[in-house]
């Protein structure tokens, strides 16, 4: 029996290893091992007051920090029935889109593009693709700046709190952002076109189920209902829909759908399920690409680039609405604590993110449950790896090539292993 280990996979968030056990030419076993240490967020947060909850949970991850922050805030607000103003909701949507842009562009340019262009890192691309590298920095910086203006910081936005924001952006700042967003549209379109010119692997997965939240009228990242392929469910049923289990070789848990099939969340799932809500330019590129609806996980990078175009359009619309209403000096919504439960669900860049809390009458955490998109995806990743490795063995590829492509497949999913490892409770 032979074992192949990829070692710590480079160019992903967090630490993980793929372990492949072969018996002759047959694949015996494949393990997606997340070695990132468990951090036990759900148990360490017990007993802490409600206003600390977003600040603690957003430190689960740094790339999707604004998403954890907003999911936690919505969970707390639902538990206490807090109503926020329209201005706050609009600002939160803007923050979400900023986070999407930053995360997607980071993945596209710095984690995945080096594979597509054949370099060990984005920095090595400077000599041969200087414009593309600069474009990547510019676009990522734009996503970061949206988060800075609305949330206060690019990583761990402290301004965003239960009830509102501790300080507001000025109209000048919003107008400046709008101008930069409109200028960035050309760059975003070129990014999609660049990806379309590159070849990448085809892995067909028709055995899995796609899931995302169902947003309102627009392609936004908040929603109160879950889509599982074409069935619609209330968010409160999330635990039945995503049954979790632990495995001893990984600190991350995995999720299985009620039918036993692996679940995939993320950009491909969203585009497959709710593409009709895309704004015009994004929809144009969606149709033009010819790859959707997609059953190939390697299309994720392209899907992310299309979502970024959608985000730019939506950001401009949201800023226009904020400016036409005029920014107002508002106080945060008042919070009256009571015993109860609340669920906050958002679509993070990598897929659906669920936060659930139970509070006591003083507003202290009694129970906390977090399911991250990468935790949902880990089972699906393993199956994809299996499909890939089996086909490579059939075609006689050597060990080096198998390791390389396994890593590329992991990267395409854009996993956030720190998120998946903080992990979740086992009893439903």
């Amino acid at each position, binding site marked *: 029996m032979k074992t192949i280990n990829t070692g710590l996979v480079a160019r992903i968030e967090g630490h993980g290893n793929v372990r492949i056990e072969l018996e002759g030419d047959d694949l015996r076993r494949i393990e997606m091992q997340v070695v990132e240490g468990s951090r036990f967020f759900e148990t360490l947060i017990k007993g802490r007051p409600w206003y600390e909850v977003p600040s603690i949970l957003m430190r689960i991850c740094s790339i999707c920090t604004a998403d954890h922050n907003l999911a936690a805030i919505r969970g707390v607000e639902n538990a206490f029935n807090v109503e926020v103003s329209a201005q706050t909701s609009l600002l939160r949507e803007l923050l979400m889109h900023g986070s999407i842009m930053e995360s997607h562009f980071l993945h596209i340019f710095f984690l995945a593009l080096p594979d597509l262009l054949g370099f060990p890192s984005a920095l090595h691309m400077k000599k041969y693709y200087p414009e593309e*590298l*600069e474009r990547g920095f510019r676009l990522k910086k734009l996503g970061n700046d949206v988060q800075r203006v609305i949330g206060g910081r690019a990583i761990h936005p402290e301004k965003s709190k239960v009830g509102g924001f501790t300080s507001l952006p000025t109209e000048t700042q919003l107008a400046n952002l709008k101008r930069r967003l409109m200028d960035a549209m050309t760059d975003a379109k070129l990014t999609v076109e660049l990806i379309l010119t590159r070849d990448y692997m085809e892995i067909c997965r028709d055995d899995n189920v796609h899931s995302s939240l169902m947003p309102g009228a627009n392609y936004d990242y908040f929603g109160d209902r879950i889509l599982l392929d074409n069935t619609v469910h209330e968010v409160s049923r999330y635990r039945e829909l995503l049954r979790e289990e632990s495995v001893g070789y990984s600190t991350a848990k995995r999720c299985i759908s009620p039918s036993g099939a692996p679940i995939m969340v993320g950009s491909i799932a969203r585009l497959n399920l709710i593409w009709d809500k895309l704004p015009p330019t994004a929809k144009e590129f969606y149709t033009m690409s010819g790859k959707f609806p997609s059953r190939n996980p390697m299309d994720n990078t392209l899907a992310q680039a299309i979502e970024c175009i959608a985000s730019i359009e939506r950001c401009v619309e949201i800023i226009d609405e904020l400016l036409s209403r005029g920014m107002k000096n508002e106080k945060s919504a008042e919070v009256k604590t009571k015993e109860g439960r609340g669920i906050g669900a958002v679509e993070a860049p990598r897929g659906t993110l669920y936060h659930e809390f139970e509070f006591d009458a003083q507003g202290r955490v009694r129970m906390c449950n977090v399911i991250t998109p990468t935790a949902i995806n880990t089972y699906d990743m393993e199956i994809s790896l299996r499909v890939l490795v089996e086909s490579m063995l059939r075609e006689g590829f050597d060990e080096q090539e198998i390791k390389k492509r396994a890593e590329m497949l992991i990267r395409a999913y854009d996993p956030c292993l720190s998120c998946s490892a903080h992990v979740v409770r086992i009893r439903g």
Partner: protein
Amino acid sequence: MKEEKIKIGIFGLTCCAGEELNVTNLEEELADIAEIVDLRHYLMVQSINEFPVDIALVAGFVATKEDEMRLKEIRKNSRYLIAFGSCASSCGGVHGLRMKEPLSAQYREVYGDVKMNGEIAPLSEIRPIDSYVEVDYYIRGCPVPEEEILYYIFKFIRAPPVKNELLPVNIQTEGYGKIRGDAFSLDPEKCVLCRRCVNICQKHIGQGVIDFISRGGGAKVVVSTFFGESFENAGCILCGQCITSCPVGAYQVRSDVERVKNILANPDNFTVAILDPMSCTSMMQHFSREEDFYTYVRRVIASLRKIGFDKVISFTEGYHLSLIHQARHIMKGDEHEKIAAWCPAAQNLIKKSYRELIRYITFDTDPLYMLMRILRETFGPRAKYVLITPCVAYKNTDEVDAVLTAPELRRLLSYSGIDVDIEKPDRAGFDRECFHAGEMEIMNTYPLGPMSESLLWYLTLFMREEGEVKRIQIEKGVEEIVMRIGETTKKALFITVPAKLKKYVVRMGDYDYVEIVPCFGGCAGGGGHYPPATPEKIEERRKMIEKYNERIISKLNRWAMSRAYELMAREGFRCPV
């Protein structure tokens, strides 16, 4: 000699990857840095990662045996290991909360009966990384701000790290009491004996109110007035330059914020705010995200109305009244209006140390005094007046009910929950119904600027002819200004270092007009701005006011000049002749 590039490695143990991500947030600068240094190990961004490195930036904490092994490997293969971020430098950061309950209970709750492989099983105790390996420097933050990352990278390129230790320095306070005054006080326990205020008061102003004094058997030296007497008794003119020059904030201006809060809280009060746009300049410099000063002033006016002021008047109208008045008397050659009375600190200087010059100055032509006469006529004696000014010398005035400096205004607004940047700019601007049409016309035609220029403008109005100005520097801080309008010549003395005034007392007869400016940069450097003052900040404030003036004045032309003169002649001005 080609120097070898320094090798840097960026590592993360168990963490949220915030520090590693924040390094990419340096954007283009990261690409530049990658050319100056050898970025050898950076798992998140490159797939080729090698040892050894010179400087290892290690983020995260040790949560599993696997982390511990990696940490020891990093230590073995690096010259300097730097704890990067709060998780590394202070025992796990937020994860430390996990230790309030035993791990086994938490594990069971989360993973049930599933046993994890030994290397990735969680360790029961979270220990700081310096208990596993030796750490050479600590960079703190959650996350470490991007500017700090850049700063430290360059710092370590320049020189190897010197460990930042918390040295056992005790804070010595001598128990020496504050030096008090009505307008401000000095805390000797904050003073670091830098000598700036002493130099200014002795060599720039010439009053020598404070000095280095030995106390307690000659062992301790503090900055103080002689015998600890109050500032007013020691000859202080209240220019406030000591306040703005102190780098460590040992001088504190008396706060009138409570007084104003009480005035506004009483619903029976009719409240009038007199706002000097100059005090908005340093507020905008320090706090604002606004880019246009004119809009900012409008927002401040809106904010003042929102917290309850019934009227908001511009203080610059007072300056105009004072200038017009003075110009008329200088034209007539009146001796008792020779010295400009528009600076209250200069007035104090004359009153306290140059009593022989009192006959050349009329104190009633002070701008505030002249303005208040008109306002009291319009709004009545029972209204409450609050002055917002960059001038500390106005703190002791009896003309108004409270005086706020720029920092106090900000504190008052912030206390009331107002973010000035978000307030809609006031449509109407300042209230002007208390001024006659003729006064308004005059005040609209020329901005305030260097005094000689403004004075020349008003002289031009009276003479109905164009004039010119010539400046000659006699010595540092003393300028002679010659104004020629038609057949008339007027000579002025402009002193910006009041200590030099003494020499010119005997030469008063040579001049038609004398101006003394104790504050560096004029009102832009007033004591009521945010300390500490630097030449760049003062220059920026002057430019802001210049741009503001450009927006509010009408264009200069002969028609405007002559019309203004006619109105002046017809309606007269309400100021003491």
